[in-house]
């Protein structure tokens, strides 16, 4: 999927809301899930699998496959497709060793 740029239909309503994905700002419009916003921005790999460390990203977008797991605001195993994108939240990829955040 391509980078996040407004296509012709959106030029008038340039999205101003954003959240952080690692170091990047990801812009979104209302009603988008975190996963949707990331896919629109060209991010397709959200996490690493535990056993074989393979990259995974969203598959079903409806909360059933559990492949779109991200670390959101410090919380692990968050389904990106079930989180509504919110201004300023901090999202990170979930690598196999990011599972150590019990605080």
């Amino acid at each position: 999927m391509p980078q996040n740029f407004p296509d012709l239909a959106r030029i008038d309503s340039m999205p101003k809301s954003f959240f952080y994905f690692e170091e990047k700002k990801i812009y979104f419009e209302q009603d988008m899930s975190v996963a949707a916003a990331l896919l629109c921005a060209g991010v397709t790999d959200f996490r690493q699998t535990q056993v074989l460390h393979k990259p995974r990203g969203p598959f079903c977008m409806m909360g059933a496959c559990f492949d779109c797991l991200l670390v959101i605001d410090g919380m692990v195993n968050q389904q990106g497709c079930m989180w509504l994108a919110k201004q300023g939240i901090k999202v990170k990829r979930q690598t196999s060793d990011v599972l150590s955040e019990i605080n």
Partner: protein
Amino acid sequence: MRVAVIGAGPAGISASLALVARSVHVTMLDEQQSAGGQIYRNLANVSVDQAQNLGPDYITGKSLLKQLEQAIDKKILTLFSRTSVWSVTEKKEVYWSIDGKSYCQKFDAIILATGSIERAMPIDGWTNPGVITVGAAQILIKTARYSPPSSVLVGSGPLFYLVACQMLEMGNPPKALLETQNNLDLLKAFIQLRPNLTSLLYLAKGLVMLAKLRFAGVKRIKAVRDVRIKSKGNAHIIEFSKVGTKSQIEAETVLLHAGVHPNIQITQALGLKHDWSQENHCFEPRTDKFGRTSLKNIFMAGDGIKILGADAAKISGKCAALALLADNGFLNAKADLSRTYRLHQKYVQIRKFLDVLYAPKDWYSCPTNNIVICRCEEVTAGKIREAVKIGCLGPNQLKAYSRCGMGNCQGRYCGNIVINLISEMVGQTPEETGYFRIRSPIKPVSLAEVANLETII
């Protein structure tokens, strides 16, 4: 009388409206941001223009949602959105989680309208990032107004063509459709079709969609086999063969679809009996023709019983509500019930046609050993075959030996595929093989919530 309706898709909404019309209070519980299920996803927030792109069926959902809103405003119906139901017991206790807190309430009756999920399509590369389902793409269109450019669709089924058309309307037609069904499937499907008016209308709609795609020049390649997806970041090369000749095509996104089947997590956790559908290659919960399950005052409606589509689901929802009313002393419900049921039956014929036309292919019955079947635990077909050889007659022993089905999705995706695999290897019917033992919580819930459960009286 207090009724819980789980799922706010067309079946759930129809059931709820039919109940509140008879002055029964309904509590609806749904996990998405707003009501509508997957078919009417985000309908309330979508602009008129955008809705047009999604087609007339999407728009008819508007009136349903409007009625729902009115009922909520009148306070005769309560809708909990963003709510994850994690347990339903035989005693009609429902456990749910919202905003980090869990609640429990016992109801007098429950209608399960939990809908369907897409069938897994385990082909080489199906777990690569950038490979999503056609349903996922539709969700992107509906909620993000985004149609992934330069997409190639692989598979078959009604939703396959619907989404292709929706992408076309959005100005981002698919680069190509790699279709797994062939002309023989079409012939077989037509031979057994006994068309009624509903079927003909449905076929007409389908033909209109195909015409649109043809007119727009969308490439269709049929009878495709041995599909392999090789991915490097957001660049995918899809290899396939057609009539023995190998080809490949590039894509930025790959969309898979192989039909849908009922989501049986709750029904399995409840211990309801399920029957294997030969036509749709999946387990379906056993209900009587109106949606009654073997448990008194627990009913089902919609695609969660059997895939018949949204229009049938609306009627099915009404049936379940009427059955509930009839069983609980509401007079006049019985007459309405028979009439409603007859309306519902109109949708069965076309379904048989579709099941034959779009039956799953070789990837379903004999995946090669290297293909990952259980996505969550990364268990390949080879590992499954190995475990069966050590001694598994069913999926629960398979789970023990291979971890297949033990992951987060609890077998939602690998379930029916695995049952089919085991059945073929062992030489028994899917019913003899059985299904994974599904337990609560059917969605994750924090220990804190479980420890501090609030019971609603």
